[in-house]
């Protein structure tokens, strides 16, 4: 039987009535905690063209977060900046290539990633269902804050043009791209690939592939907990954040994506609040979302919005 058109699938995600209050409270908690950022040069990873620093900063619940920060040695200040968010299992990017193109480039490592896992380490698999019955302690609560506090860090750096900050990433990195764009309105441009953490309960119906398999497996063992799981995830679903996004944004998805089903990609794109938004839906591609060719589209998009604007 042919698959139904993923573009018309829709979503079962609903927005909790206190969604905005929930996140305002989280933000207020985080705001009481200064970043206390430190930058440590990493000569071994630096090159004649690019300086590399290891960054640490404080985040929600007092968790110390790491990241890679790369700067072009020859720079016209202030610099446009790009944050690269990591996938679920991938290691944080060390974005020397972006620094070589003239950006202040940050490779984020939210809690649980290597170098940010001393105080929080649910593991892989594990993160997606960590404390999934309680929105106030769910693993992604602090993880999300870690991701968008990168923007706060960049905003403190004298070499960064705070009006030209871009965000990008694929899969979980695509989700964090959407979330940062929603929660930090100073972001000037966003490019999200194959976004994860969108339409999560729908995805668990559509695929058996990890990471969503973690939800499938959890509910197979504990089917009676489905309402609570759905309730928690509603606070964390990108679809419920997407209406806040106002910056220019591009999203690419693969129509044969078995990891983040295209139905969910369409749904979150539909919810994005930006007027300037464009979807690239690639037939014949899976979770890679045609990254091989689409990279050039992203490069041109950031050149237009961060360098030539």
């Amino acid at each position, binding site marked *: 039987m042919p*698959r139904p058109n993923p573009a018309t699938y829709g979503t079962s995600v609903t927005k909790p009535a206190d969604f905005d209050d929930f996140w305002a409270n989280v933000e207020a908690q985080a705001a009481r905690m200064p970043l206390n950022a430190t930058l440590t040069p990493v*000569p*071994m*990873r630096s*090159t004649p063209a690019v300086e590399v620093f290891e960054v640490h900063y404080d985040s929600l619940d007092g968790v110390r977060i790491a990241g890679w920060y790369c700067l072009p040695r020859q720079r016209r200040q202030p610099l446009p900046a790009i944050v690269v968010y990591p996938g679920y*299992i*991938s*290691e944080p990017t*060390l974005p*020397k*290539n972006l620094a*070589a193109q003239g950006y202040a480039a940050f490779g984020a490592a939210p809690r649980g990633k*290597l170098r940010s896992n001393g105080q929080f380490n649910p*593991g*892989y*698999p594990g993160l997606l269902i960590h404390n999934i019955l309680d929105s106030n302690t769910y693993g992604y609560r602090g993880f999300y804050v870690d991701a968008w506090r990168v923007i706060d860090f960049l905003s403190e750096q004298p070499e960064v043009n705070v009006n030209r900050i871009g965000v990008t990433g694929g899969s979980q990195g695509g989700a964090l791209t959407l979330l940062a764009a929603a929660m930090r309105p100073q972001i000037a441009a966003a490019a999200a690939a194959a976004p994860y953490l969108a339409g999560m309960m729908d995805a668990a119906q*559509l*695929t*058996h*592939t*990890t990471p969503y*398999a973690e939800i499938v*497996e*959890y509910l*197979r*063992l504990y089917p009676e907990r489905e309402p609570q799981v759905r309730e928690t995830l509603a606070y964390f679903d990108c679809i419920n954040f997407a209406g806040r996004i106002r910056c220019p944004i591009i999203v690419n998805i*693969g129509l*044969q*994506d*078995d990891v983040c*089903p*295209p139905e969910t990609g369409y749904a979150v794109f539909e919810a994005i609040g930006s007027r300037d938004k464009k979807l690239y839906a690639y037939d*014949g*591609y*899976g*979770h*890679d979302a*045609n990254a*091989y*060719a689409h990279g050039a589209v992203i490069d041109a998009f950031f050149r237009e919005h961060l360098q030539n604007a």
Partner: protein
Amino acid sequence: MTAPSDRPADFDTYWNAVQAELAKLPVNAELTHLPLQSNQHATVYAARFTGIGPYRLFAWFSVPVGEGPFATVYQLPNYGSVVHVPAYEVRQRYVVLALRHRGQRLSDQPYAAAYPGLLTDGIEDPAGYIYRGIVADCLRGMDFLLSRPEVDAQRIALAGNDLALITAALRPQASALHCAPGLLYNASALAPRTSAYPLEELNDYTRTYPVQTAQMARTLSYFNPLHFANRVRSDTLLVTGSAQDFFSPAILEPLAAGLGGPVTRYESAHSSYRDGVQQAEWLSTHFGYSTPILPAQWQV
């Protein structure tokens, strides 16, 4: 970009010693049932067994429901700290072992790998290079499989990068090899031509320790898949990039030509869907099944 002359004179001696060291250690496997990952199609275990050091290793071990022994897929680890639980569809048909080598999560006590950093850890000395132990871990995974009654020892396929090829060479019991090289193949010669990790780690290393460049190249020569190729007898599918890619067909042709068994060359479609279907179909055909089991999104 071949490096035939860099095969160390004591290459065989080196690897015979590694294998002898491994053979002295019993596998001492321990299986723990994982209800969360198990389902109506397959039972999943946390497998723990011992590698050289001695070092306790972790792997996902999945066994289809039903009467075995089963055709088996051994998934060798890629470069990164996490190895996923084997895919739902693969688990339905095959016994699957997915190893987390020393340094990767759940095999990270007492040694936790750094990324970047793993590729050059101990690279000054072939005897102390971390990949000596990692290769031995991969061999130990095969030893574990061969000890299991659920495994059809005549039908074991290896899948992965350079580590899969090296394992096929040193554990000839594997009947099939699906290999996408890109880590250790001619690494010291190729690294200066890229700034992409993980090979960039080698450039970071030589920039920082230029006097160690020759020693680094010497150590890597013990791990070059090119020098293992003629020992591979299994039915092999070798995945390459496109002509314009770093690991192009031309770059990898010496490896393909050097393989000791039948080889099929496959140029990546740069699509996880199309490449995934290709791999599933190739394995299915090798094991005599008429069709692969595919995710719903891949079914047309």
